């Protein structure tokens, strides 16, 4: 029963995506809606990304110092480990799990509310491909802006670690700065960006799917929102394993 339900949902998701990726009725309208979604889903997420990143960066630096303090390990390792954790996992996977909560629930509840208030029916009656009109700008806008969020996350996380070095005595500023530059591998940055693009697509498309197929009222919109966040998070974690295997080995 569960398997049948899962397969049905999986099939319906791809049918939905085929409608989403149809040619837009008006490119100009699509363009302006994409800019609007970049602003709403991406730019509006910058403050949250910065606040979380600065604190997590600081915490990672402190924990690294506590865990790897040994005369055999050079002091700059704190900076190096902080940088690599941020680049490899926090700035993409963990950030996207957080954004699945913020952006995913926003998308699912917005589209779900449009569904139960017949706004989507109104679009369909007019002859507008509602899936394409509503979802494509969100997917494109969020995927396009995700690298910017990742870049903000990396910068502010490293700044969080720097603040620990500056305001506490657990590591010196010079050793931290040296550490975040030591043994730098550029591929790690690209690896983070590539993963984040997949995760952004999952967040925007899966949340839209759950919102679009809501039936009922406010209660169901809430459930759809929760399901969107949970499913997106699980898929992000699953993809994380697959992409890490493919990109790092």
């Amino acid at each position, binding site marked *: 029963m569960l398997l049948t339900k899962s397969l049905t949902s999986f099939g319906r998701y791809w049918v939905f995506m085929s409608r989403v990726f149809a040619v837009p009725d008006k490119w100009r309208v699509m363009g302006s809606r994409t800019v609007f979604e970049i602003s709403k889903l991406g730019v509006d997420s910058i403050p949250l990304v910065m606040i979380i990143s600065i604190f997590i960066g600081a915490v990672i630096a402190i924990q690294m110092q506590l865990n790897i303090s040994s005369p055999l390990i050079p002091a700059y390792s704190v900076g190096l480990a902080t940088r690599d954790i941020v680049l490899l996992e926090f700035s993409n996977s963990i950030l996207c799990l957080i954004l699945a909560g913020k952006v995913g629930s926003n998308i699912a509840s917005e589209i779900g*509310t449009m569904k139960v208030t*017949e706004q989507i029916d*109104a679009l369909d*009656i007019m002859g507008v491909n509602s899936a394409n009109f509503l979802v494509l700008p969100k997917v494109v806008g969020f995927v396009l802006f995700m690298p910017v969020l990742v870049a903000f996350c990396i910068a502010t996380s490293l700044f969080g670690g720097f603040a620990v070095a500056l305001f506490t005595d657990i590591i010196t500023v010079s050793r931290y700065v040296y550490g975040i530059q030591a043994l730098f591998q550029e591929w790690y940055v690209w690896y983070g960006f590539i993963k984040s693009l997949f995760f952004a697509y999952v967040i925007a498309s899966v949340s839209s799917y759950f919102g679009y197929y809501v039936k009922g009222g406010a209660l169901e919109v809430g459930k759809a929102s929760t399901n969107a966040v949970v499913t997106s998070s699980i898929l992000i974690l699953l993809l994380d394993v697959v992409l890490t295997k493919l990109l790092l080995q």
Partner: protein
Amino acid sequence: MIEVKNVTKSFDDKTVLHDVSCVFETGKTNLIIGQSGSGKTVLIKSIVGLLHPEQGEILYDGRDVMRMSHDQVKELRKEIGMLFQGSALFDSETVLGNVLFPLMMFTTMSREEQLERAHFCLDRVNLKGADSKFPSEISGGMQKRVAIARAIALNPRYLFCDEPNSGLDPKTSILIDELLSDITHEYNITTIINTHDMNSVLGIGENIVFINKGHREWVGNMNEIYRTSNEALNQFVFATQLFQRVKQYVISHEQPHP
């Protein structure tokens, strides 16, 4: 003219419409009436193509919508305007933005022409000075009028209204009814109104289709309805004492047929 021929629609094991046939005439306010759960919303949604009946034909001036290709349906929908029960205005758009939307999506008009047409439609529904307001900032009656303005923006040939008076006070309901009736006659469009508002039935029902338990039970107009022998229809339309008195008054004051 819209013809519905032998339409049957089921959900899982439950048949909601049983072999329904009826005709909705051009230039008239056509009403679909019936109790809640009788199948009238399913009928109107089947006619506009939001639901797909298992069998039957739905002809828009001879064009069978159930045999049209996707592109043909898309073209047909540009000839359709629809007023939803809850207005279905786009929350993120202003009043003007809502009326401009179909013009922006489906016409090659310049921005000035679009604005001129949108203002004309808003004036037609007696809505001035609310251009920049959002749907949440205006009353239910005003929302209905914005929805009507949006529905007529593209000069539709067919106008569908799903319970346009629900949630409105009697005075506003009458205004909406008069507006729909005036627009129907003025633009000679085929209007189908799904309602269980008795004021609408007796006020603007030029062609009434009564649906009961998924069956089309009666067809007539607002004058004929007073003399119907259909028991279910009598119980539905003249359920209150007020309407029973209206019926008695109308029958007793009617001129005898020669």
